[in-house]
Structures are given as structure tokens and as C-alpha cells.
């Protein structure tokens, strides 16, 4: 019964999406001979031609995309009660970097973490209010690429700064990202991972961090990679 109800709702929604309104007017002309006159628009259309200003905004969700989304993610009664995975807002990325010891001014050069952050505003989907566009909440391929580049570039700064970061102190005691065991082998510290991610370190995160250290060509590269990997994983989603 529930399935039937959901299907009916979807059908109704599709019908609604396909019947958005448009109107015709006198004296409206178009210079594009491939388009029908405004008064002879095909059924269901709400779009005018280049030669007139009679267009409607048809930038809504495709009915078929919506059906696909509902089938993949589940009905709204379920999805509305689950957290989604929006990208971290541009300003929050800056706050995260700065609070973890990264100079986000860009003074370090175009390829520094700060430089990549400062020049990455468009890739990271900032708002364009002049065109009535809000900040994008969905991470794009270019946005993810830029974000990961930023974290890779930021890693050395974060590692160096962590012992002095107020945000990462627990009861006044500093956190460090890496320790050295009795065999003089570097390992990842849970407190450091928590500092990077903003949540207690999970066993999987610790394992991945240590694996990254072990597989790297040298310890310095391994540490940088480990930090970048953890930050990228944690902060792809807000």
C-alpha cells in the first residue's frame, strides 16, 4: 500500500512538473525562424524565443531526475529524516584551515594552501547573488579537486602548527599528529586525527592513517599524505 501511495505521488508530481504555465501576448515577435511564433508554442512549453522577453524560468528539477532520486535514495518520509552530505561552505573551509594553523591569506604563493583557497572560490561553488544564485551545496568534481589540492598543500603547515593550536588542546594539553614507537616508527595519534576531523578518531581512520605512513616513499611524504587524506575524507561533507 505504501509503495502504491508513493508511486501515485510520483505520478502526480510528474504531471505537475510537465504542466508549468506559459502565456501568449500580442506584439511578441521572434527573429529565430526555427522557433514557432509565440502564439503557436507546442503543448507543454513555457519558453519563448531569443527575440522576445517572454521566457519563463523552467530551471526546475527534471521529473525523471526526481524519480531517479526517489528510487535511489528512498521516499521523502525517510530521506527528510536523514542527514545529507552537503559540501563544506567556502567560509567554513577557510575557518577550518585557519584554526588548524594554515595561513589562508594567500601570501605563501599561488600554490600554497592559502593561495589555492583564495583562488578557488568559484570552483568551490560560492554564491553569485548578482545573478540570484546561492552558494552551491553539492560538491562538484572541480570543487572536490580543488579542496583536495588545498588539503595536500596545507598538510605541512597543519603538522607544524598542531602542538600550538588552542583549538586542539584538551584540558590545556597540546595535541600532536604523530608519535614514534619503540622501533622508531612513526604512527598516527588519535588526538591528532580528532583535531583534524572535529570528531573522535575511529579505528578505521587510525588504520588508514598508519597505512598511509607505512606505504609512503619516505616519512615526510607519508605524514603529509596522511593529514591530507584525513582532512579530505572528513571535510568532503559538512
Amino acid at each position, binding site marked *: 500500500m505504501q509503495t502504491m501511495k508513493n508511486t501515485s505521488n510520483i505520478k502526480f508530481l510528474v504531471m505537475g512538473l510537465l504542466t508549468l504555465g506559459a*502565456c501568449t501576448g*500580442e506584439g511578441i515577435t521572434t527573429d529565430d525562424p526555427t522557433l514557432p511564433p509565440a502564439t503557436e508554442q507546442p503543448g507543454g512549453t513555457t519558453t519563448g524565443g531569443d527575440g522576445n522577453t517572454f521566457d519563463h524560468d523552467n530551471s526546475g528539477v527534471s521529473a525523471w531526475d526526481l524519480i531517479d532520486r526517489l528510487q535511489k535514495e528512498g521516499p521523502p518520509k525517510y530521506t527528510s529524516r*536523514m542527514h545529507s552530505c552537503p559540501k563544506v561552505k567556502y567560509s567554513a573551509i577557510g575557518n577550518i584551515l585557519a584554526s588548524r594553523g594554515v595561513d589562508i591569506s594567500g601570501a605563501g604563493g599561488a600554490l600554497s594552501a592559502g593561495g589555492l583557497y583564495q583562488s578557488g572560490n568559484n570552483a568551490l561553488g560560492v554564491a553569485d547573488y548578482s545573478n540570484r544564485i546561492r552558494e552551491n551545496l553539492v560538491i562538484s568534481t572541480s570543487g572536490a579537486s580543488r579542496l583536495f589540492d588545498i588539503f595536500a598543500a596545507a598538510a605541512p603547515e597543519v603538522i607544524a602548527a598542531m602542538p600550538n593550536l588552542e583549538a586542539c588542546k584538551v584540558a590545556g594539553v597540546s595535541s600532536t599528529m604523530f608519535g614514534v614507537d619503540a622501533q622508531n616508527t612513526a604512527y598516527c595519534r588519535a588526538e591528532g586525527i580528532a583535531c583534524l576531523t572535529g570528531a573522535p578518531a575511529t579505528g578505521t581512520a587510525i588504520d588508514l592513517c598508519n597505512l598511509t605512513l607505512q606505504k609512503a616513499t619516505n616519512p615526510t611524504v607519508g605524514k603529509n599524505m596522511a593529514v591530507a587524506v584525513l582532512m579530505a575524507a572528513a571535510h568532503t561533507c559538512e
Partner: protein
Amino acid sequence: MKSTSTFLVVSTLVLLPLASACGGSDTKNEQTFDANPSDPDAALPADEWDQRLSQRDYNYNAALRIAALRLTGALPLMDDVQAVVNAADNAAKKAVYEAMVTKYMTGPQFAQRMMGFWRDTFKMGGSVELDTAPAFAAQLTVENRSYMELFTATAGNCPTMDFAAGTFAAGDCASGAPGNAGVLTNPGVMKQFFSNFAFRRVKWVQEAFVCTKFPAEFAATPVDVGNPTNLYTGKYPFESIAGTASGGRIDFRDVSAVICANCHSNMNHIAPLFANFDGTGQYKNTISVPTPLDGASLALITDYYPAGETTAWRLGAPAANLTELGAAIAADPAVAECAVARTWNWALGKTDIVDTLQQVPKSTISSQINAFTTSGYKLKDLVYAVYTSDDFTKF
């Protein structure tokens, strides 16, 4: 750098399920779920989605990270993280978490985040002029005032914000309108959404505050008005808006492609109220918005509706001016529900409720709607209620 990024992408895919709060792929065959008694869905048998919801458990540290990022724009302090970790049980963790949320909702960072939220909601900002509407909404939120002031405030409706300090300075909108009515007489709004017939302003009000695109109202029984494949679904009489037959220059009664009146029956009764604001957002004594006709001549009232019709928010909710429109909007239950739904979607990380049809069933937010409507539409209380709800803290 390229190989590093590739490695990060692969690693992220490995770790993403840990960071993501989505999911619940594990399906246990539990027969009961914690349904809200007021939920209309509760009468239906539990299905797989109910079972998945019932399998969630509290994770206050995950909730803390999300709450900190959304409410302050920063990660939680390690002391805050550890305080939740160290709490003895879920009841203790809940108490610590709720204290943290209260802390996050105090201070300039919260004001900054609310400014960002309202800029995105209103799709405007970035200049003094275009920031006053989102600043007003942010001020109402930070000061826990009524959401309905957005439509009814007769003074102080164009504040400015010191972004760094997170403070607001009072200011009245100076659009020249006969009376102020919250954001409805905000010159920045009128400028940002200037268009033919003032329809973009009407669309903005509908989408920002009702959370749906037009059509706004549906009759119980659609009727054939000349195109049997497309019925008229509006509540107003079909002839209540202008067409060429009534002397209008645009045929809003056209039925050849689709039924224009399905949307325009409401739009044409609202738009004249915004039509006296010109392209700079200033109120004039006559209609000051153009038409799409050749020469872009100014609109006439007879283009909207025939003689005898009047402006209104909805059929049966007349509004002779913007003050009355604001009162009618504030009295519309759909507006309060939209405010809750928008706040809910923001907290749960959803995309825009209108642009991407991220609708929230009323049953999901019924307790928040009830609290919001019965306690004076207090915005800050609403934010707190959503961020401390079971759905926010369960994963």
C-alpha cells in the same frame, strides 16, 4: 600534485561512509518503529524505510561536528569533543551536547552564519543595499524574535550588520512606500527581483516563504476551460484574470499550450501590489514595471485583471496594500510550515527546498511546527529545537 589528488579521491571514497551521515543500508527485520502518534503515516504498516529509521542510534559527537560547522562555521574545540566523549551515557551526552548547541548559538559566529543562511535563502546580498533583507532575517533569528516580523514590521526592517562583530544596527527601509511591511517593502529586494509585471518579486515571495513554485492554490475539481488535455486547476474563477478578451494586452487566459491561469490566477492578484516599485527598488505613485511587449511599455492594471477584481494573497484573503499583504502572509499556515521546513533542511544538510524539490513531509516536522506556531514563531528557538531533535542526533 595530480597524483596526490587522485590518491585523496580514492582514500576519500574509502573513508566517506565513515564521515557521511547518510545511509542505513543494514536492514534488520524489526517489526516496530518509533512512530510519531500524530504522523499520518503511522497508520500505515511499517515498511523498509521505517525499519531503517528505527535502526539509527544517537551519535552526539557526529551531531556536534555538524552543529558546530553549521552554527559557527568552525569545527568544535577538542575540549568540546572530549566533553561529549567523557559523558557517561546517552542522557549525559545529550545534556552536554545541548549545552554546546546553546553555546554555539551565542556570539558573532552564529550571527555570521545566520546572515549566510538568509543570504542564500533570499538569493541576495553582498552590498549594503542587498544585505538589509537578509540582515533583518538574521537579526530576527539572533534576537529570537517572531519570524512574522519579516512581513509585518513597520520599522527597523532594513538593519545593517557589522559582520565581524556579528551585531546589527537598526534601520528603516526607505523605499518611499506608503507604509513599511518587513521585507515586502525592502528596496533591495525590489531591485534584486525587478522584472516584467513584477512577477519575479511575486515568485520570490512564493518560493522563499511558501517553499513551493507556482501554482499556489488548487481547486478541488479541475475544470475544462477550452483545452480538454490541460484542465484549469486554480481556485479563482478563470475569468478573474485578464486576457485579450477582457482588454488586457497579454492573454493570461490562453489555453493553447498550457493553462496560464493555473499560475497566473494567483500571481496576477498579487503582482500589482509590487508593481509600483521601479528598477531601483523605489516606490512610485504609478505602476513602474515593464511588460514584455514591443517597446517594453509599462504595465497597466487591466493587464493583470479585469475591472472589479482586487489584489489578494490568496482567494478569500484580500490585501489592498502591502501592509495587508504582509498580514495575510503572516496568517498563512503554509508560511510557518515553510520556515520550519527550510530550517530543517538547512540543519539536515539538504539542498534548496524549491530549486531541488527537497520537500519535507509535514509528519517529519510536526512537533517543530507545533512549537513554532504556538510560541510566537521564535526563530532562535526553532533552530535550537531542530538541532537538538532526535533526527538530527541519530545516525
